[in-house]
């Protein structure tokens, strides 16, 4: 490994963790705001910073900050007869696997910048999916040990529920993916994304969700269960177990469980986007389309406009205001035009010298990089939104129903999916 490679890897680590750690706290607040919207409420809007006599609330955007401050300064309670060491490490055990999962996720297209091959993922493992499963299983330990180490009956019940539920759903989750692995013929996540380019049957994007619609549904349900959020929040069911496995946690340790939950939502969205929504691929287009300035322009328009739209809804600005609509359109236009220019400038102007020339000659690759990152972020945000709205729609299962769903419905359904996929593949090939 050369120095450049090491630097590229480190930048990738920073990028992956940065993406996760910026979306996850935003989601803690987005969840409260979005659920408020869907339930005809206003939602949190009081946390404010006093600046020059005006209080700035940013539509409640300061809540994650205020929450963080509050948690840091809260008493860190430790049950006297608990297991001190495990009580201390289990929040880390809960967060770490969720963070580690992003290492194999391709965040964007592989590009060739300034003479260096840059894969937009921390590690392009051969056995990417196996790595995912390994870390998904590890995340059970955090919550199980947390409940056990706090010497509390509710905590123990919560951790028992966690371990049995997560293990049951992991079986189904693994089996649902076998169909996809068979179709693609690889466990490497970058291969899976590469495979999902172009169209299938003439009119559908060749995305996992269209190749394996049933598998996608099953995977979504089991991945949902893995995040331990309602309707699968049995381990912390507050009406039965008070707070479940983290009942004896306070302060920042509780904050880590809380954050870990949202990190899991984001990694779940990443996984689903990579496996079933084509990762960074544009729909219908092949990955070569990223070199086409027109495609990049249109895609840039849509994704920048979406990101501006997202920020504007975050800030609670009124969308029916013509100025706001103009801002969205203008943002999209700037983004699209900028990317298209970056991508196509050298073709128009011819080769140039100096720094400009260096940037221009790398323009298509740079545009591809930015664009694929934006497309992927957009998919994640939409999936997270969907996930959070689902969580606020459905009531909690009863525990026996969860087990029944896992073992009696998802598992057989996953097996059927596997068999049918096998037969179809045999016929086609």
């Amino acid at each position, binding site marked *: 490994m050369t120095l450049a490679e090491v630097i590229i890897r480190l930048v990738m680590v920073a990028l992956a963790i940065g993406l996760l750690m910026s979306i996850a706290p935003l989601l803690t607040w987005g969840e409260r705001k*979005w659920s408020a*919207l*869907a*339930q*005809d*409420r*206003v939602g949190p809007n009081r946390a404010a910073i006093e600046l020059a006599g005006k209080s700035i609330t940013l539509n409640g955007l300061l809540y994650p900050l205020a929450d963080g401050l509050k948690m840091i300064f809260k008493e860190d309670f430790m049950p006297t007869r608990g297991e001190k060491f495990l009580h201390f490490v289990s929040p880390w055990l809960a967060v770490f696997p969720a963070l580690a999962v992003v290492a194999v996720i391709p965040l964007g297209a592989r590009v060739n910048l300034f003479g260096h091959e840059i894969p937009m993922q921390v590690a392009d493992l051969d056995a990417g999916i196996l790595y995912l499963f390994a870390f998904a299983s590890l995340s059970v330990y955090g919550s199980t040990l947390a409940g056990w180490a706090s010497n509390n009956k509710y905590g123990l019940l919560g951790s028992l529920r966690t371990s049995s539920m997560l293990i049951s759903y992991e079986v189904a989750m693994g089996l649902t993916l076998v169909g996809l692995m068979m179709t693609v013929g690889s466990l490497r996540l970058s291969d899976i994304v590469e495979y999902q380019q172009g169209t299938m049957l003439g009119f559908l994007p060749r995305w996992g969700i269209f190749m394996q619609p049933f598998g996608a549904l099953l995977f979504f349900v089991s991945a949902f269960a893995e995040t331990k959020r309602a309707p699968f929040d049995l381990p912390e069911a507050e009406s039965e177990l008070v707070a479940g496995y983290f009942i004896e946690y306070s302060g920042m340790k509780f904050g880590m469980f809380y954050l870990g939950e949202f990190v899991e939502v984001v990694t779940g969205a990443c996984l689903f986007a990579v496996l079933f929504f084509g990762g960074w691929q544009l729909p219908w287009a092949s990955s070569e389309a990223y070199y086409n300035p027109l495609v990049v322009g249109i895609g840039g328009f849509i994704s920048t406009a979406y990101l501006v739209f997202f920020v504007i*809804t975050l800030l609670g600005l009124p*969308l*029916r205001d013509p100025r706001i609509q103009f801002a969205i359109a203008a943002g999209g236009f700037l983004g699209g035009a900028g990317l298209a220019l970056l991508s196509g400038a050298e073709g128009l102007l011819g080769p140039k010298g100096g720094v400009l020339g260096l940037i221009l000659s790398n323009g298509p690759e740079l545009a591809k990089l930015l664009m694929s990152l934006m497309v992927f972020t957009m998919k994640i945000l939409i999936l997270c939104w969907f996930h959070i*709205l*689902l969580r*606020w*729609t*459905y009531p909690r299962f009863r525990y*026996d129903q969860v087990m029944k769903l896992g073992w009696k419905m998802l598992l057989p359904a996953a097996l059927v999916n596997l068999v049918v996929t096998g037969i179809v593949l045999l016929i086609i090939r």
Partner: protein
Amino acid sequence: MAESKKEIKTYISDASDDMTWHERLYVPALAKGFGVFAKHFFRNLLGDKEEGDTGTIQYPEQKIAYSERWRGAHRLTKRPDGSTKCVACMMCSTACPAQCIHIIAKEVDDPNVEKAPEVFVIDELRCIFCGMCVEACPKDAIRMDTGIHVPAMYSREEAVWDLDKLISNKGVRGNV
């Protein structure tokens, strides 16, 4: 005989016995539920609703007007000469279900009045704001139209309002 054969059914597990296969799939119902939820989301996000239309009152900035009959802290009304209208008849303290009005009467030389309160205290912490005292008073001497929420205090003694305090309270719709 037919009665005793009546089957006793216990529903411990599911009510799924009398569900159609369509309902048992759950997925259509789930999708429908999500549809309702998403409809509200987008209506609130994109629609022409103002924040106030959610029915939420942003309290410190916005306040709703109380109704005319709202019962706040008490006051004692005054005659034109400034003395209290109260004649210490004890009707209010008798009517009070919380027994929080305490009156000691004194004699007055004015033959039209004869009696007046020497001490008139209301323990605003014990008061349940039922308004019985106001109903009972034959002289319209006690009213609850001050519009005051009894504030938080540091000691119980502060909550016992005496004659001077009660007379000095103002009514929101003019002082009688």
